[in-house]
């Protein structure tokens, strides 16, 4: 340890940007800022930098050079990567063995930059916002076997391991997920990986209203057909300043109609997928003209676009995400003034919403309603109209106090992304 202390790393004294290439460098940099009480913003490629409150830190710690696949053992179903490794690099590597990150990482580039920027492994973990397959396979937090990180004292810490079943000590992997870099700078992650399905097909039911769609989604998910994606894309409310344009987003030949879409994905072997699509069709008494079936290629395009929130690409409005019990979804939507567009994912358990003319007061009133329905809301993208919202996430006093104590145990001087999630944390 003493020897390490004596080594000198090229840390600039003047630059506001630190780009470490090793975990030890990360540790030294954070130790330095810990001693001098200087807050730091931690970023990867910046693809999700705008989620959460914008920070006014004097220093930035860019972890994108901390990249590379450390170990990938397909037969052990895990991949260990440095935190700055790009998600597409990981996904391409897994594809060679017909495997995948089952939580279906969202590419937020479309939302913020109108082009792909899938970000890094560390960023995915820090934000824990999973794609459509969350419904079946769980979230990012369910796919981390272990990690290494540097806490706010500059100490290198680790938790977990490379195996699926592990209850040795507290499960800090869960805590580090969704902590938006406020607890530690993640340096290494071991992801659980799963086999990719050979086939996928999507059954689309056209022109259902929200109640019928929710009912159908519920029935389908509660059946034995192993649904791995369930979305609803409505045409209403039809707000002038944020119109849903399903047609131009998808442009898929096999979509028979232009109205609202209720889409269900099934994945597996060809025979099994065909059988399950048939089962699902049987369940609804709807004329065939109102049903489209997307084969593998078009189905994959559909889910890529839905997952990456391409309906919202280029918007100047605020985007937020409401997570709530599915039974409450339509009730909540009816309580909101019709100045928004939205789509439902996870079988109706999450609402992605674009709202125009949003005010802080209005956002707070939405939050109140969401909480009353047993859910939470997070501002994902600020707008030109409302560039700053004081409370972007949802928390109550009891959880705030506990979160503050946890933050202190990792980062006692609050130097890592201070205030990124909540003021005071």
């Amino acid at each position, binding site marked *: 340890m003493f020897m390490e202390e004596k080594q000198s790393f090229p840390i600039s004294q003047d630059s506001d940007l630190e780009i470490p290439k090793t975990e030890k460098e990360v540790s030294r940099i954070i130790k330095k800022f810990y001693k001098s009480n200087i807050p730091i913003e931690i970023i990867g490629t910046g693809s999700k930098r705008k989620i959460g409150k914008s920070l006014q830190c004097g220093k930035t710690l860019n972890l994108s050079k901390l990249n590379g696949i450390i170990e990938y053992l397909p037969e052990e179903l895990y991949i260990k990567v440095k935190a700055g490794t790009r998600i597409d690099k990981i996904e391409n590597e897994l594809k060679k063995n017909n495997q995948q990150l089952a939580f279906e990482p969202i590419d937020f580039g479309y939302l913020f930059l109108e082009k792909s920027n899938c970000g890094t492994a560390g960023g995915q973990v820090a934000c824990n916002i999973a794609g459509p397959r969350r419904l079946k396979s769980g979230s990012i937090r369910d796919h981390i076997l272990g990690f290494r990180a540097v806490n706010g004292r500059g100490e290198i810490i680790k938790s977990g391991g*490379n*195996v699926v079943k592990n209850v040795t000590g507290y499960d800090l992997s869960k805590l580090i997920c*969704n902590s938006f870099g406020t607890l530690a700078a993640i340096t290494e992650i071991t992801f659980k990986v799963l086999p990719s399905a050979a086939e996928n097909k999507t059954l689309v039911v056209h022109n259902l209203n929200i109640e019928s769609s929710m009912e159908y989604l519920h029935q389908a998910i509660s059946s034995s057909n192993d649904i791995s994606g369930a979305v609803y894309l409505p045409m209403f409310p039809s707000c002038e300043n944020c119109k849903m344009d399903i047609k131009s987003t998808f442009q898929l030949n096999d979509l028979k109609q232009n109205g609202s879409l209720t889409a269900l994905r099934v994945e597996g072997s060809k025979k099994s997928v065909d059988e399950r699509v048939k089962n699902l069709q049987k369940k609804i008494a709807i004329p065939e003209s109102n049903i489209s079936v997307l084969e593998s290629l078009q189905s994959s395009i559909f889910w890529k676009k839905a997952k990456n929130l391409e309906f919202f690409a280029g918007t100047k409005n605020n985007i937020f995400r409401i997570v709530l*019990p599915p*039974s409450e979804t339509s009730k909540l939507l009816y309580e909101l003034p019709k100045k928004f567009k939205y789509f439902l994912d996870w079988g109706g358990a999450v609402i992605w919403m674009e709202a125009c003319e949003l005010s802080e007061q209005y956002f707070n009133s939405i939050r109140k309603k969401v909480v009353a329905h047993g859910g939470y809301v997070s501002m994902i993208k600020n707008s030109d109209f409302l560039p700053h919202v004081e409370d972007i996430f949802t928390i109550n006093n009891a959880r705030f106090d*506990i979160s503050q104590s946890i933050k202190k145990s990792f980062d006692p001087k609050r130097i890592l992304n201070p205030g990124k999630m909540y003021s005071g944390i």
Partner: protein
Amino acid sequence: MTNLTMPRIDKKTILKKKIIVKNLKKILKPENVLDHEDELRPFETDGLSAYKQKPLIVVFPENTEEVSKILKYCSHERIKVVPRGAGTGLSGGALPLADCVLLCLGKFNKILEIDYKNRCVVTQPGVTNLSITQAVQDNNFYYAPDPSSQIACSIGGNVAENSGGVHSLKYGTTTNNILGAEVVFMDGSICKLGGKTFDSEGYDILGLITGSEGLLCIITEVTVKILKTPESVKAALIGFPTIEDGGKCVSDIISSGIIPAGMEMMDKELIHATDNFVKAGYPRNAEAMLIVELDGTKTDVLELMERINKIAIKNKASSIKISKNDKERLKFWAGRKAAFPACGDMAPDYYCMDGTIPRGKLAEVLKEIKKLSKKYNLPVANAFHAGDGNLHPLIMYDSNNKNELAKTEKLGAEILKYCVKVGGVLTGEHGVGIEKRELMCEMFNNTDIQQQIKIKKALDVGSLLNPGKVYPILRKCAEEGRIHVHGGKTKFSDIPRF
């Protein structure tokens, strides 16, 4: 019983017993406070019965408010509290302390709500794991994690230990199958975590408390996810001439892209022991045996079973039986589920270990266990959740023979150290408790452990909740094995304890 350092007994608390009982009887119905020596005896141990210690007092709160008041009172009076669910844990997590209030959740035994619309069940923590499935099975739903003790273990205990079971390969462990919880911290504050939603916003405190072994809070309510019962389930019983062939077959099944619902392996010793015990029709000439269970649609199961059959033949399977109906499938499982009592039939005592290793190391670790078994002259039978590399070596011994428990524990520790050496971990599903506490340093360095202890202190300032469990009792890790107590005094008695 070997001596194990536990937190220093607070004599003042013991002297105040009568006053504490009186005060607790003001918070709870008097009949829910037990303090007579005879009443305390049933609570002196949990599933790790080699260790026994009577608590000072046992309490049975009936609602969250009472739990909160008990903790507030104990926090104020600096009295240690040890939580207990059904007491089936195998790592000594619910072992009482001589100066503790043992807080039992046995009266929290009601399922509060079955919500099919949101596919979840809200339940009190004392409800058994199996009764959740029983409550929803008429509607063809079930709760996925199924630890072997599911008939007796409580869901609150499952959360505290992050219990797994034979189906966790496909469906995950407790942490992947719960949506919310109501908990009470040591200062008496009540907090709702999660709810009926997927994921929770902010720090994943629910994820942190799952598997925290009763060190961070008391769980008073749990919301679990329920799943639709699969349309079809089939199991294959496959015998192998060598352990290597069985191990290779496991790796090949996973590598081929199949994730079975369950994949269990047993060695020859256990095949014989269980087959003698329940007559399950196991291949007695095989060195290793696999039970592979598949679930899904009928087409899926048939298709995958065909592929499993081919992979097994390629790996020199000596026998393959595929269940024709549910009755036969359950018969296949009967032996595996009786692994523990079958060992109990073979030796006066057995000690169950719980390491996890990378699947590819199965054969290597088994060979090492055989070597160690010879070295210590203690028979070991092996059951694994092979799909996820979770080993359960069962060491057979006789506690009437002096020093045999100590020898058994040493053998167990060596097995676990070897698991860590090949890239695995100390415990897959039983928890650290007191059993593997001193081995934590095999996996974690001092900084790692200190970070965890800081979290503990952040949520339990006085370290009063289940102290002496999970983390080595001294600030620094003991270099070798356990710390023995001589004449009631420990080494480095001036070092702070946790």
